[in-house]
């Protein structure tokens, strides 16, 4: 009987402790939510803050639907808010606050065995729009190009359209993958694959990064690289309490160290 009672008391005390903690619900981008934000959250907790995190990363579009319905305290997004999304949140009576978190680069990756090492911006556009269908058109080994893109809720999906596609759509033959990791593994297993991933995911097995018109996606060469973009935190109204503390922590020196470790570019370096 005694151990059961002890267990009960322990569980209750743990539950009480959990009760005392505030929960930060963070929703949005997969690029940020898969690696960076969880590590920031972990470090934030290690500093002794009594807070639990609830992070779900299903794409940047979910940021604004969640903020609007009040199911998230912080939204993470790899693209800027759209006008209609701002209007949606405004119509709920709140103002959107925006914080630049870090910079990211979209790397174009191909299979390691593909002889191509460099493509021009125009070629990238033509490949992803489906105009170039065969690797021999850009001087590679003949074989049909397989395009892997993110799914439509991803901020990377839209950002890439904005930065690389000049308003055109992806070719109908593109395959929509649920995450960066999935793109990396498909490109790694398909000799004729091409896709894009965030800088933090570019070191996966069997893929290689190609340069764009000679420009490498490297922190020191961010200015020349065409596909670099800022990532954001969004809150509904002025953040207070733990939310504010967490955002301040992310933008502090300790936060930036984690940003750099995960493979993003800290703001101080980007500027």
């Amino acid at each position, binding site marked *: 009987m005694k151990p059961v009672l002890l267990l009960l008391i322990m569980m209750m005390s743990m539950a009480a402790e959990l009760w005392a903690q505030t929960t930060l619900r963070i929703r949005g981008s997969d690029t940020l939510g898969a690696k960076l934000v969880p590590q920031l959250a972990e470090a934030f907790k290690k500093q002794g803050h009594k807070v639990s995190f609830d992070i779900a990363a*299903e*794409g940047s*579009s*979910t940021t*604004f*639907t969640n903020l*609007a*319905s009040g199911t998230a305290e912080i939204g993470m997004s790899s693209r800027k808010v759209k*006008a*209609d999304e701002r*209007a*949606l949140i*405004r*119509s*709920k*009576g709140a103002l959107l606050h925006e914080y630049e978190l870090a910079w990211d680069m979209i790397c174009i990756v191909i299979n390691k065995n593909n*002889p191509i*090492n460099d493509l021009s911006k125009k070629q990238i556009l*033509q490949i992803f*729009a*489906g*105009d*170039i*269908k*065969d690797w*021999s*058109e850009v*001087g590679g080994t*003949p*074989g*049909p190009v*397989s395009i892997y893109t993110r*799914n*439509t*809720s991803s901020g990377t*999906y*839209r950002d890439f*359209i*904005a930065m690389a596609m000049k*308003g055109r*759509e992806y070719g*109908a*033959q*593109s*395959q*929509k*993958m*649920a995450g960066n990791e999935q793109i990396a593994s*498909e490109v790694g*297993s*398909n000799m*004729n694959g091409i896709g894009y991933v965030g800088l933090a995911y570019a070191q996966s097995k069997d893929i*290689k990064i190609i340069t764009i018109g000679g420009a490498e996606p490297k922190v020191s060469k961010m200015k020349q690289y065409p596909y670099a973009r800022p990532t954001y935190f969004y809150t509904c109204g002025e953040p207070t309490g733990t939310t504010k503390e967490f955002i301040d922590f992310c933008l502090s020196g300790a936060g930036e160290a984690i940003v750099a470790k995960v493979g993003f570019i800290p703001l101080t370096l980007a500027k």
Partner: protein
Amino acid sequence: MEERLAPLERQSLGCMLLKKKKLNALGFDTQKFIRFFFASNASVTIIVLVLIMLMLLREGAGFLKTYKYELETYRHAGLEFCDIVDRPLAQHQQLTSRLRRALGASLDTISQHARNRRDAYLNMKRQIEEESSLQREALSVALEQTPSAGDKIIEPLRTQLAIAGVKSAMSLTVRSFFSLDEADKIRAELSQLSPETKDIPAFLKQLNDHFSTSDKAAKKSFATLVKATEIFEEAPETLQEILIEIKEHVLQTKTAANEFNTLKSGRLKLLEAAENTQNPVEKADLLKEAAATQAMPVDFHQRIKLVTSRADELAEKVHQYITAIQKAAANLPTRGSPAHAIALLDEVHHELPLHVQEMQTAADEIKTWSPDKPVSFLTVIGAFFFGSNWITNSSWQDSFGFVPLLTGSLIISLIAIVIATPISLMAAIYSNQFASEREKELIKPVIEFIQAIPSIVLGFIGISVLGDLIKDVSEVTWLQWIPGFPIQERLNMFNAGCLLALMAIPTMFSLSEDALNNVPEAYVDASDALGATKLQTVFRVIVPSAFSGMAAAVLLGIGRVIGETMVVLLVAGNRIAIPDFSSGAGVVFQPAHTLTGIIAQELGEVSRGSTHWQALFMVGIVLFCISLIINWCARTFVRRFEQFKA
């Protein structure tokens, strides 16, 4: 005798429940209570089903209206005007792609060797750089430091890099493009790579030069093809410039219209909140905010004039474009290139007249196009049920065409059923008729256990095991006669179909085994009495009389397969396009997206009540209808079977 016994037993069971009237003191009539309890359970399921149907209909019903509105904006803002020219112009890219491939194949006859050598060198260089990346990074960091780090720090880093370079250069396998001497030269050069020397290694330079000279020579000998391809590629440029200008203009119109609408609905919400609140301060605040979101509606007529006024100019450019590509095509050589390239050029010649004709029609069409033509509900329904594009979150125009998803779902189900039907029916016949008791005890639980595997686990197996297995098998030389081999994508419809077959087998197996069990013993006895062998009895008597039950089992298997989500989302490859049937049966190795997968993938991201949201519910309704029809068919089959038995 037996017939009379059965109802008696049933009655006694009922009596057992009814006789215990102990709780009557509380005013409960136990009999009524039990009755009510069972009846309420049954009615809850029915009510839930009706509620689900109503909910689906409520969310989906708005789709026609909102999509109609979207298509109207598409027309009024002038996006349709641009698409009249833009859609057929996409064919130009297809033709250019063929020309570029033909050109590449032609040039390869001369410059391929030089290019292979250069690419192989570059790949080796990359490999070495990667292997020694740690030392390289350390050295470059030290070099970039200001004030510069002393030689004391840099020198050991240099040596470390040199050691690493030599080590990986020695283990390098040099491909057969190079002679032994050259291989040694490459190793020597690559072992000395350092971030300090900016010069290109000498041998690489030589390879580069060699490639560019042979490339030049190749381009010279195929000069007419090079020239014609260039002209062909550049032909639509002026046309596209104008088109882009118009596109920007109409897109602004559309964005303004959409923004006006969101602000308007937001303002209405604010006003409503102001109406309901009692607090005067808050009311004033809300009213003020509502006033701040006041915006001007978009004047479509004024803005579209600017577009339609350019129709003649655009048509003129289209005609110029047509003459340009026709001229370029006439100059394409028909000889001299390798057969593969000639075939591609022939395709271009073959398809050009159609393209020209389409462009011609487009040029005529834009002159008579009017933004005021009404959009009928039939058009909207057609755009959904027969549309071949599912484009969402687009910066131009979303379209919700359902055909690519349906074809994906149907093909995957077909594959699954083709695989699962023979396996499960055979297994059922065997375990029911031929297997010994011990075998039965093994077969039934094992097959039924498959049902217990969570579908996400199966999906995981599909990604990590089955996909690679199919791909490896497809690369085996003596299997190349199979259409579609070697396959390109490991995530494809076949992969998904195999896994779904595995999921359908338990359902189909159990149901068809039941059907076999239900065959009256008298049939078997009669067959035996006539002197039939066991095999004859099974295949001439038992299977035919259980046929309708087995058909129902297959149908329910289809129902199970078409509604499955997780596996197809993970494994089918998620390409939203109607599969290319030109490759015959090889089509099964292409990726596709499905009705269920699209709902799972996109429902999380959309805002409630938007067109996209409603479109997904429409897909849900269609899925629901498909399942309903399949179940209805299965029931009809079973009923026939019961009649037959009586």
